[in-house]
């Protein structure tokens, strides 16, 4: 039997107040695609940072090809043959692909005819890339290819990929998987970090499952079902949301007509002529790759950035385009931004103060300019109780709650204000599966109660689970919408990638698929 390429034993890492890794063992064989599976905060990233030399561990050792090693920094890791593609790319927008690659590799490698070597590698691994293009002109998928090619130039023996598909369309994911399988065939080991079960079943040979900083199990993904792996990951039985039957949609509650807005941020996305309507009792899902105008759309709909044309947004029959969040709440709107800490909630403030933050007017928590502390605390306690938020009490700071609990609190706060329209962005991003299920259920219940619900999300599974209509946003333009049973994941993927053609025609046309990237 050959020696493992990488072996970790007893790796432990403590941060103030939290054990990120506790006695973690991991073995990766040559040529193996090994999944590291776990929810956000399970300790995957900490472990990988140790392997790549970004961070030291408090205890434990690491063997590389049978020899015990210590990796003080990422350069030492690269010298051994470890390459890593981070979730967040480190690229300079104003430089070309070749310049970016040259900056990230050793001086010896950067010498000579780098340009043709990039072309060679990108051609042989099916990663089309033009060395002379400027990075700011490239899509996210193309940018990821730069990082992959940069690693491949160094002929790695172990490639670490951190959540590589979170920014890709389904078609781009397929292309990436082809490349990874080919590398595996050549003997390169791949450590594939993800929480997407279907991908792991499809791609990986082995999976190590982590929960709360510890390894809970190793398994062969091919022999497991997505559900059984999810249960190992979460440690409890999953409850899928139930869709209440026989909901009748009523009058339009949120109407957007030809909404056009220039982004105030230099790197933001302008919105172009967005039109849609959401009826009472209906859930509209908007899919799209991050950075295609979702944040700007939420800003415009919530009134955090008012728009010039007052008629372009109508909430509950009132034109509110030029109004701010306070007026829009008065018209019946609630909204939940993507970022919990510092946007949806103030981390340093107590839960009751955070309940007051958006509920002040609708919950009547102000009396002649003064905050009614007792009433606010009762409201916060009601949220904690009804939405099963785990916290010692409403005097605790919002920042002390886990991501899932805080998100449940924020949703509870908005839902208990009985909105007639609710707009949410990435409702379950970075949230544990139990809380995610509770949040989705609460959206379904809200619609069942007659509210109009708009869910903007990158998570297609989520949209198929809750939405009555799905539309796609790409570069600030919104497609028409379809009921979930009339459109496939592939078709949505093409729209997400900006293929202009009618997806019904395009998906049945074999040629279109090749151009999806």
């Amino acid at each position, binding site marked *: 039997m050959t020696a493992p390429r990488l072996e970790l034993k007893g790796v432990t890492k403590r941060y*103030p107040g939290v054990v990120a890794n506790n006695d973690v063992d991991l073995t990766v064989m040559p040529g193996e695609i090994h999944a590291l599976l776990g929810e956000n905060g399970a300790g995957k990233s900490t472990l990988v940072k140790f392997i790549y030399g970004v961070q030291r561990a408090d205890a*434990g050792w*690491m063997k590389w090809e049978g020899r015990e090693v*210590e990796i003080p920094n990422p350069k030492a890791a690269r010298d051994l043959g470890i390459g890593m593609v981070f979730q967040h790319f480190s690229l300079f927008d104003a430089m070309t692909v070749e310049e970016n690659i040259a900056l990230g590799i050793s001086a010896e490698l950067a010498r000579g005819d780098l340009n043709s070597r990039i072309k060679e590698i990108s051609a042989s691994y099916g990663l089309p890339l033009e060395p002379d293009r400027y990075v700011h002109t490239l899509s996210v998928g193309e940018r990821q290819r730069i990082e992959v090619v940069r690693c491949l130039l160094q002929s790695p023996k172990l490639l670490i990929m951190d959540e590589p598909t979170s920014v890709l369309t389904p078609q781009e994911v397929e292309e990436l998987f082809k490349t990874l399988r080919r590398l595996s065939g050549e003997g390169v080991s791949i450590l594939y970090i993800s929480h997407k079960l279907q991908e792991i079943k499809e791609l990986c040979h082995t999976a190590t499952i982590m929960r709360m900083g510890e390894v809970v199990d190793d398994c062969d993904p091919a022999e497991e079902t997505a559900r059984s792996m999810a249960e190992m990951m979460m440690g409890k039985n999953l409850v899928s949301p139930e869709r209440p039957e026989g909901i009748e949609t009523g009058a339009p509650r949120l109407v957007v007509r030809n909404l056009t807005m220039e982004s105030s941020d230099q790197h933001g996305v302008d919105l172009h002529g967005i039109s849609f309507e959401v009826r009472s009792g209906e859930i509209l899902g908007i899919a799209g790759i991050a950075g295609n105008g979702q944040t700007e759309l939420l800003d415009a709909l919530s009134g955090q950035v008012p728009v010039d044309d007052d008629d372009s947004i109508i909430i509950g029959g009132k034109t509110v385009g030029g109004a701010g969040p306070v007026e829009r709440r008065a018209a019946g709107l609630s909204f939940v931004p993507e970022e919990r800490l510092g946007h949806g909630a103030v981390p340093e403030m107590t839960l009751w103060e955070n309940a007051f*933050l*958006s509920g002040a007017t609708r919950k009547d928590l102000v009396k002649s*300019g003064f905050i009614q502390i007792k009433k606010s605390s009762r409201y916060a306690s009601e949220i904690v109780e009804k939405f099963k938020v785990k916290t010692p009490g409403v005097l605790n700071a919002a920042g002390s709650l886990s991501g899932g609990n805080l998100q449940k609190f924020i949703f509870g706060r908005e839902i208990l204000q009985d909105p007639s329209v609710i707009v949410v962005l990435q409702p379950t991003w970075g949230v544990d599966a139990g809380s995610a299920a509770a949040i989705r259920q609460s959206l379904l219940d809200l619609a069942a109660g007659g509210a109009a619900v708009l869910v903007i999300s990158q998570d297609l599974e989520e949209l198929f689970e809750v939405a009555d209509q799905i539309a796609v946003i790409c570069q600030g333009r919104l497609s028409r919408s379809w009921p979930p049973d009339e459109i496939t994941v592939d078709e949505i993927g093409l729209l997400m990638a900006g293929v202009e053609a009618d997806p019904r025609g395009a998906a049945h046309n074999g040629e279109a698929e090749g151009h999806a990237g």
Partner: protein
Amino acid sequence: MLVRLENRGEISKTMVYASPFIAVVLTLIAGVFLFALLGVNPVEAILSFFITPISTLDGFAELFVKGTPLVLIAVGLSFGFQANVWNIGAEGQLTVGALAGGGLALLFFESESLFLLPAMAAAGILGGMAWAAIPAFLKTRYNTNEILTSLMLVYVALLLLSYLIHGPWKDPEGQNFPESRLFPDAGILPVMIETTRMHVGWLFALAAVATGWILIARHVIGFQIRVTGMAPMAASFAGFKEKRIIWITLLMSGGAAGLAGMVEVSGPIQQIVPNISPGYGFTAIIVAFLGRLHPVGVLFAGLLMALTYLGGENAQIEMNLPNAVTGVFQGMLLFFLLAADVLIKYRVKFGGPKTAGAAEGAG
């Protein structure tokens, strides 16, 4: 050797409130060394600096005379600082407030009306507000930096003062000294304790503390200010208008500084002179931070800083020490306070990143 600051993760609540006391103790210790270096008996010097000035009723009352403008200004500034609005120009707002309030006393120099003092107080507040309104307008309209504009306006205000007392407001019977005529009795703040200089201005300071405390803890305005400072995005989520907060905090701190200026000319000085304030507007910045931006903390910090003014004067008279000792003590106090705050948040580590114990034999 490499020195690093490592985040402690959790911040101890006790230490946040203990740090001003730690800073005071360290300042005293450093003061002992400083005096020893200057060849002065340290014990005698510390006594002369911190104890003798308040050992008499006169001296004790003087503590409140000096504390009044510091507390008034610092309570106002602490609002802005909590919202990340940095009004550095309280000294200028104080000057304009003194000119507005004092100007009224000069205009009605034969008045005996009971309404003169309230009118002067109102004029002082409005004057300070008007001066602070300039940086507020520039920031909300043209996005200028309020630190620069408010600071530069201090010098404009001082020149305005200088022009008025060298020109139109000069006392006609003052033998050409650059001073205004004395205020009428109706324009002078009544003394609270006979034979001392302690005047009713101190009550203004106490009222400001009480109002400030209620506003920041219970009122919607205080809530909006705190959210804006801690999480600007959350303020936008809630629908608080950033420009409104900038206006409110600048007007509040300007008004408080303007009132302090009026109190100074109407209380201890009783006329308009070239030097109205020995830098109260700047010292109040230290007071605000030393008091943890909380009105009650500001009250005690203000009295402590007042003591450094008195101590400096006394040490100058008794021990022949330079007056700069006051500035040195104030500086040390701020330095130790900031250092203590950093160490509450971070711990100091020497050497590079710690090597994992088990991996030591490897390689």
